[in-house]
């Protein structure tokens, strides 16, 4: 396979050191994080906890206020942009599909960091695009306009674009938002295959807790801009942590067939009345 030979043999590390990121004031506070190579890490946390901000800083969209992001021990914000893009890809939330771009043209944009003015479209580029489209299962859509597709198909195309970039690390910001459950499951299975069968390192921000617990190798729970817990779902996906991170009273049960963990909100009505009492008290 061309893809494997192109990528580095030893796994590439992605870590942060005392990272502080924000817009006007710090949203992510003093985060030390090491992403496990070849695994699917999922960032979860309540709205505004800084998970997307952290991902944006890993992806160089935001500059750190202090601290640093290290890619193979080198500060990512000082490395040449194109060089980093050969190792790390990003699928942001709500990317814009330009009108009139065909699926194949969109996927081909992923080859940008591998090209230059003197090295335009190569055989490698063609192979990478074909392979990415096979992996994302969108070959039959190749000549359609991206704007004519359904949400799920479109998201597959964007994922194919980042796959065509042939990077060791892929960052995805809420790739399943607004999609049907079946489509979400399909996408997450595709992404899990990327990590397990193709040794890619994935960092994904997800909203859906049960899906996160089912598909993640590593769960990273964030609260108020800090990392509250990190580990396998078995280690960290429990009632205490859910209560602490989300303020959610829930039972965590194990599906005996798949061994995956599921949270079921409990005593919802009591909670609401409690909260109301608290507010009234304030």
């Amino acid at each position, binding site marked *: 396979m061309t893809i494997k030979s192109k990528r580095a043999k030893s796994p590439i590390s992605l870590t942060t050191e005392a990272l502080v990121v924000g817009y006007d004031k710090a949203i992510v506070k003093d985060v030390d994080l090491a992403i496990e190579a070849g695994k699917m890490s999922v960032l979860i946390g309540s709205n505004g906890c800084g998970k997307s901000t952290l991902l*944006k800083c890993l*992806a*160089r*969209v935001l500059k750190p206020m202090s601290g640093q992001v290290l890619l193979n021990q080198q500060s990512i914000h000082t490395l040449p*942009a*194109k*060089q*980093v*893009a*050969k190792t*790390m*890809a*990003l*699928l*942001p939330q*709500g*990317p*814009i*599909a*330009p*009108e*009139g*771009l*065909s699926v*194949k*043209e*969109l996927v*081909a*944009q*992923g080859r*940008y*960091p591998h*090209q230059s*003015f003197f090295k335009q479209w190569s055989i490698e580029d063609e192979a990478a695009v074909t392979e990415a489209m096979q992996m994302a299962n969108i070959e039959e859509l*190749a000549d359609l306009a991206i704007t004519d597709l359904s949400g799920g198909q479109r998201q597959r195309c964007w994922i194919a674009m*980042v796959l065509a*970039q042939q990077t060791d690390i892929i*960052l995805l910001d809420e790739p399943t938002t607004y999609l049907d459950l079946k489509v979400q499951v399909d996408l997450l299975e595709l992404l899990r295959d990327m990590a397990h069968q193709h040794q890619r390192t994935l960092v994904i921000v997800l909203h859906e807790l049960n899906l996160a617990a089912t598909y993640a190798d590593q769960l990273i729970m964030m609260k108020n801009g800090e990392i509250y817990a990190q580990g396998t779902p078995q280690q960290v996906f429990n009632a205490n942590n859910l209560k602490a991170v989300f303020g959610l009273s829930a039972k965590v049960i194990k599906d005996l067939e798949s061994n995956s963990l599921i949270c079921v909100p409990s005593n919802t009505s009591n909670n609401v009345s409690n909260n109301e009492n608290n507010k009234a008290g304030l």
Partner: protein
Amino acid sequence: MKRQKWLSYTGIMIMLVLLTLTFIWHLSIGTKTIPISDLIHSFYAYDESNFNHLIIQELRFPRALIAACVGACLAVAGALMQGVTRNPLADPGLLGMMTGGALAVVYWSTFVDVDSLVWLPLIAAIGSLVSAMIVWSIASRAPGGLTSLNLILAGSAFTAFSAALLAIHHLIDQQTFEEMRTWLVGSLLASNIDIFYWCLPWIVIGLLAAIILAPSVTALSMGEEVATGLGINIKKRKWQLLICVVILTSVSIALAGPLGFIGLVIPHVVRFFVGADYRWIIPYCILLGAIYLLFIDSIARWIIQPQEVATGLITVLIGAPLFVLLVKMKVR
């Protein structure tokens, strides 16, 4: 993709043929009918005593060259502007350069030098450069920095402001208005080969830069985060692209005055045919922009012979209906 590529290359060939044809048509049109043999001879067997040769080489050839280059520059500047701002209504005038250039020329001819047209291109270029710098600095000082929205807002405000100044001046000063009104709608009447040679290096730099930067414009049009992920330094690239737009636009204003419409519409027409990838949009804009302005300028000189209509007006009068027709054909 292979089939599409093949189609796109064929398209380029067809456009090159069309460009040659419109160029020849442009040369052959004029008050004096010149036989095609004289036209051809004037290029490889130039005879100074032959009046036809003189007309072709001294008047018509420079004008055709300028028309082709201005058309190409404006179309490319418009395409880049639309890509960078992700706004389909963006055009080269968005940075306030068209009205800014016009204002500079009008003020110059009123307060400094009424008679001389020699300095006009330079003044126009300087005026449009200064306008771009003003809009640019307003936009980058606004909260959020040089974002598309800030650029559009600052540009629109500045354009409205300088257009009002221009209108006031027209009301007060009849004479300048009389002298300048042809230039102000965009015209190739005063085109001059010496000025063209001054502009040529900038045209080459601007168009080459546009071709080289084209792939990253496609990436930028998918959103700044996607472009960052693909390894583009957004801030630096935006600067480069805007400088490219400023060069191409000020050169066009120097050569043909504030010529609107081309920069807005030609990129859209091109997109109808080649899609959304700037790798193709830019070369097609160069060719179609050149063909279009040559065609329009030919009509401007031909329609009420021996008089001629200002090219800037014909650009819109013929272009707008054609564009509407194209949109209807596309939508079906």
